């Protein structure tokens, strides 16, 4: 208890640690949440090359313009011009309606609508393609219905032929594929990681030599308890902001999130101790830790799922860093409300990570600071001429 109280005083006295623990999660959540305030990619600029100029082709153009996802911004008269606008990024999609489009349909001659999408940004390209396909399929079905009705079939009969079967889509948990829902919790998880790494490591560096002198494990546990305790409060505020301000659903149990979070922080304390033992200076330590933010978020299975990575790569990531076992389950515990048992394999892997790496981290810390203490002692002796 005494050690815990001492460590609490140490942390409170260090304004840098306090700033990181208190301000970090809240500010970053607000900065990143605001990026996705416009939840969907709407009004994507489209240019139209209408070589038919019939009422049907104009109707199709109007369907695109009236769709929330698209905004027809230009009309061009050649494919080259369309390509040029796509090349220089003025438009994101080009719509080409061929010559005699309307006549061909009435003559029952096959015709083809072409869309050209700038594929450099996959998000935009997928959105354009999916929405354009929906509009054109509706047009196509309408044309088939008219032809069959003209042949004397009733609307119902024609419809049952054209739509031999229907398919319905139901997107669970996030029906509109909102990027806010998808990404914000990933960044909250990353901030939790970075804030803990920085605060816990700095607190070790602040009194590393004293720490290794007596009861190092108790000192480390006390530091962990203080940093994790404050972070639990501030990251709860960050999660509350995601929920209240940015509308991310909280469908799970806070206790489950807490359990996973604490086990993750326990595992994360191992690389923190190792880097602190090697860096031994506050600024250097923070610089190195910050450099890990990007590689860890890329490899945590969020953007690119774990099962899509090469097998050896996923194993390597799991052996080296615990974040891969935290980011996705953290999100799913909150957003989907999965039971803790569904994340049990992640918890087991985190515990194994801790069991393997903690002795190594402790050994490195002891060795590093004892060496430093010896060096300081020698320097002191030399200065005194002993």
């Amino acid at each position, binding site marked *: 208890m005494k050690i815990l109280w001492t460590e609490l005083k140490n942390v409170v006295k260090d304004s*840098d640690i306090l700033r990181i623990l208190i301000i970090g999660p809240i500010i*970053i959540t607000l*900065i990143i949440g605001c*990026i*996705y*305030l*416009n939840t*969907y*990619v709407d*009004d*994507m600029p489209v240019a139209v090359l209408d070589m038919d100029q019939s009422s049907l082709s104009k109707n199709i153009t109007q369907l695109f313009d009236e769709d929330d996802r698209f905004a027809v911004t230009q009309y061009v008269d050649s494919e080259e011009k369309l390509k040029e606008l796509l*090349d*220089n990024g003025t438009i994101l999609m080009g719509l080409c309606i061929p010559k005699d489009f309307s006549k061909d349909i009435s003559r*029952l001659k096959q*015709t*083809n*609508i*072409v869309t050209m*999408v*700038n*594929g*450099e*940004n*996959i998000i935009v*390209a997928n959105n354009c393609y*999916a929405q*354009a*396909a929906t509009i054109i399929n509706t*047009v*196509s079905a309408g*044309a088939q219905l008219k032809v*069959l009705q003209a042949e004397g079939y009733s609307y119902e*009969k024609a*419809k049952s*032929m054209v*739509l*031999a*079967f229907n*398919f*319905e*889509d*139901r997107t*669970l948990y996030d029906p*509109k*594929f909102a990027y806010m*829902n*998808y990404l914000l919790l990933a960044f909250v998880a990353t901030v939790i990681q970075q804030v803990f790494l920085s605060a816990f490591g*700095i607190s070790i560096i602040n009194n590393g030599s004293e720490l290794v002198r007596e009861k190092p494990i108790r000192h480390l546990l006390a530091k962990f308890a203080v940093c994790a305790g404050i972070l639990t409060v501030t990251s709860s505020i960050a999660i509350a902001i995601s929920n209240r301000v940015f509308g991310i659903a909280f469908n799970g149990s806070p206790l489950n999130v807490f359990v996973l979070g604490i086990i993750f922080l326990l595992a994360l304390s191992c690389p923190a101790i190792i880097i602190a033992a090697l860096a031994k200076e506050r600024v250097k330590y923070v610089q190195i830790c*910050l450099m890990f*933010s990007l*590689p860890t978020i*890329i*490899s945590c299975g969020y*953007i*690119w*799922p774990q*099962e*899509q990575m*090469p097998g050896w790569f996923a194993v390597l990531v799991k052996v080296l860093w615990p974040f891969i076992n935290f980011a996705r389950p953290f*999100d799913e515990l909150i957003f989907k409300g999965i039971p803790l048992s569904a994340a049990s394999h992640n918890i087991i892997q985190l515990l194994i990570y801790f069991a393997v790496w903690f002795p190594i981290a402790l050994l490195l810390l002891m060795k590093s600071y004892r060496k430093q203490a010896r060096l300081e002692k020698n320097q002191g002796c030399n200065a005194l001429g002993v």
Partner: protein
Amino acid sequence: MFESMLKSIKAEWKRAVSEKTILIVIIIIPILTGLFVGFEFEKGHMTGIPMAVADMDNSATSRMIVQQFRENETFHIKYETDDSDMLKKLMDESKVRVGLILPRGFEKDMKGSKSPTLLMLYDGSHISMSALAKIKATEILLTLRCGAAARMIAANTGNPYADALKLVQLVGYTNRTLYNPTGSFKFFLNPILVTAIVQTGIVLMASVAIRQEELEKKKRKKIGYALGKFFFYGLLGTVILVVNITVQYRFFGIPFRGNYSYAVILSVGFAFSVTAFGLMFSSFMRNKLFCTLINAVLFIPSPLVIGYTWPFISLPKGYRMVTPWLPLYHYADNVRNLFLNTLAKAHFEKDILWFLAFTAAMLCITFASTLITGRKAEAAEEDREKRTNGQTLELEGGIHA
């Protein structure tokens, strides 16, 4: 000034070799990250998305539909059940990301012209997987429906199947995705990820590079000192940017369709702009840790706000006003264009001019700040010396008395 600049470069190099942090942050971690993303996104496309099927009809038609999904490399049917609740449970526990429910009597209803409905379920919490699954599943189902519709029209009208198929395909649709036709994640993400990590490395080191205690008294020497840091980190950053671009292009198969010299020139402009920004902070902020954290908050999330992944048009107005002032905004799109498209000369020139103006402005602030804070530090030092001398004299006077 030139001498102090060289001296400053040498000193920084010595520090890099002896302390290792500079090498770790600017060279080792960015290069390893380049290899890391190269291996991680090696495949480029998602395949084998876990799927569950609830075929409650178990007819020839329903089995044929399931077979189409089984043969498509995008999907991997992991579970087959005849219970839709079980399928929902598998989705809830994240064991599958896609579900297909074929209702009882599906085939019978189709033959009876009742247009039965099958249900596709997607896990919306994992957009990157579900969006692709939705596109691929829709393609499969539309193709199947097309064939089924043609067969039904042929049977009902007595026309040949080929004619019925023509009617079904009366309005065809072709989508041409330019520059990244296969929708490869590798082509899309690797250029920005390798750039972002180098940017972070440069700014974190440059933001603590100017050390007040190392500043010499003469004005020119102070400027030479700051210039030394500028060239050291700017050049180092440029080399790592170019190395990372080359690695992605040579070893991980990302096409490079643009002009290589443009990439080098843009990298010079970008690396020096970021360095100048970091140095500007370093010149007036005493608390190095706080300075590092501020720069991290400004630069680490920057790939998200420049319109590279989340389109610029969808950003809130405030971000759209601020982000054009970030160097990455003027670099990322150009580099992606160099990889996947061809970069227009006008764009390139405009951004190079921006880099020049931004760097010049940042350097002017850095020089002014270095001179002012240097002078303050000297004044404080002189004051301290005077007070120490005064105290010594008083002490000596006391002793003599």
